[in-house]
């Protein structure tokens, strides 16, 4: 068969495939009445034609055209696809808690890095209140005291625009960014993640300890109770994601450091999805629930404790059936 015959025989197929490639994303999926397996089949045919054209030394133009068709086919067929919404629901329902259980060593390490300084500092400040001056300037302390003074009308950090929506935006911008920094800091052999964990633990502990020993219990603890579980666990899990990357570089095991980094990143980024989701929810709760002034402090603390209990149950039990299934494989 010469080149002209070859082109004449397959031209219609190539045009057909090309028009499918040109169709925008959504239309590709539902090319009218065509069996979805048709396109991978066509793609392999084009790859075959490309090999033939090479082998038979057909003209460069034909080879280039087939090469470009094959390349575009590769891009179109190997892209990620699937139902994004279903994947999100699956992740929340079982994937995320299962992942947290699988990475429990790292998560517990990150929790320790965050909570040991936090709780330790509260204990120290209750015993020696003046210790706070090692950690914060008098101006900063006055600011925090003003935020949570029992005489206040509104609770929590106050900014010029005091609407709840404004605070929601601020918490998202600030707190989720801290999650991302913890994650990215892991790339510095874990040092960045460890630093952010301990630093945040110390800062939160200093404020909490100082305000507690001043007796601002109902305002401060009433304010933070509701979102505390979401925010602190979210921060710890993002730190664990950073530690995962750092540990992959320190102890790559049977892989090269590069390969180990790539493998660990795939897991770490999934931890970060969960952490960022939790921190976003925390921002929502903090802005629209925690700032409510007229509710009794008992109710707010109870809600906070219920959230902690629900998280414990969620991470311990959600998606267990799937664990068993994946172990059986």
């Amino acid at each position, binding site marked *: 068969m010469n080149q002209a015959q070859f082109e004449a025989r397959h031209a219609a197929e190539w045009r057909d495939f090309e028009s499918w490639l040109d169709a925008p994303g959504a239309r590709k999926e539902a090319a009218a009445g065509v069996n979805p397996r048709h396109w991978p089949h066509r793609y392999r045919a084009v790859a*075959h034609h*490309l090999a033939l054209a090479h082998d038979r030394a057909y003209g460069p133009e034909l080879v280039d055209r087939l*090469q*470009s068709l094959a390349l575009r086919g590769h891009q179109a067929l190997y892209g990620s696809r699937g139902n994004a919404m279903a994947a999100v629901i699956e992740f929340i329902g079982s994937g995320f808690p299962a992942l947290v259980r699988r990475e429990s060593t790292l998560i517990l390490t990150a929790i320790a890095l965050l909570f040991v300084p936090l709780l330790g500092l509260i204990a120290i400040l209750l015993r020696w209140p003046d210790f706070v001056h090692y950690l914060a300037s008098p101006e900063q302390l006055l600011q925090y005291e003003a935020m949570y003074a029992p005489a206040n009308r509104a609770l929590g950090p106050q900014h010029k625009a005091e609407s709840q929506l*404004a605070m*929601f935006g601020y918490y998202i*911008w600030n707190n*989720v960014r801290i999650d*991302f920094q913890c994650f990215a800091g892991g790339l510095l052999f874990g040092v960045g993640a460890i630093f952010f964990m301990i630093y945040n633990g110390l800062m939160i502990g200093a404020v909490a300890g100082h305000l507690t020993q001043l007796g601002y219990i109902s305002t401060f603890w009433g304010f933070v109770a509701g979102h505390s579980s979401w925010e602190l666990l979210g921060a710890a899990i993002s730190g664990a994601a950073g530690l995962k990357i750092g540990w992959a570089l320190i102890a790559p095991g049977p892989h090269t450091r590069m390969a180990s980094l790539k493998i660990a*990143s795939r897991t770490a980024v999934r931890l970060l999805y969960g952490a960022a989701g939790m921190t976003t929810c925390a921002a929502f709760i903090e802005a629209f629930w925690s700032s409510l002034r007229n509710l009794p402090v008992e109710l707010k603390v109870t809600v906070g404790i219920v959230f902690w209990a629900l998280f414990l149950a969620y991470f311990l039990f959600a998606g267990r059936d799937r664990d068993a299934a994946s172990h059986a494989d």
Partner: protein
Amino acid sequence: MLDTLRRVPTPEGFELTLRLAGPVARALAYAVDLVIRAAVLLALSISLPELVGGGAGLLLIAYFLLEWFYPVAFEVWWGGATPGKRAFGLAVLGDNGAPVTFGASVTRNLLRAVDFLPMLYAFGLVSMLVARDFKRLGDLAAGTIVVYRDRPGVRAAIPAAPPLAPAVSLNLEERRAILDFAERHATLSEERADEVASHATPLLRRGAPPARTLLSIANHQRGGRPI
């Protein structure tokens, strides 16, 4: 060896040839994106507080999204390229030449925070120069590469000449070279064209001008068919 081509074999038995993009093109693309982001933010900061109460909160959310998810959204849903990358013909792909996945895109864009350290993407630049394939740290972790998108292969017209079958049979690379020569013929002086063409000794006939001979062979390859 410094090589900006990366060949990726596919399961279907052909090789993808990807042209990797270096630091300069990528920095320029980043600068374009930076300007776009700044412009969007400026427009929002002027218009949002006018339109809705609590505009400050929405503005911070917009800032957050622009800062972290602007590249992710474009890379995943707009053919692997932010507007800046598109302006310079760049695109992000996975190591295997397939489109970048959501997870990989999030990974490479969040790790920008480290590439940026200690200032102005210094770590990222060093990583690009040291690692294979011009990868910054985020690319190493995510398993992604930045390549030049090939323009659709449109061949230029070649000067008409009476078709002539080559004296020896030519392989694909040789045929390509002859077509390339014919396409660029118009940009060369007559003497220079003859000088270049005179290297194709096995194809030339005594007494015929070398450049004209190669043009004739190129016309034969095109087979008189329209381009």
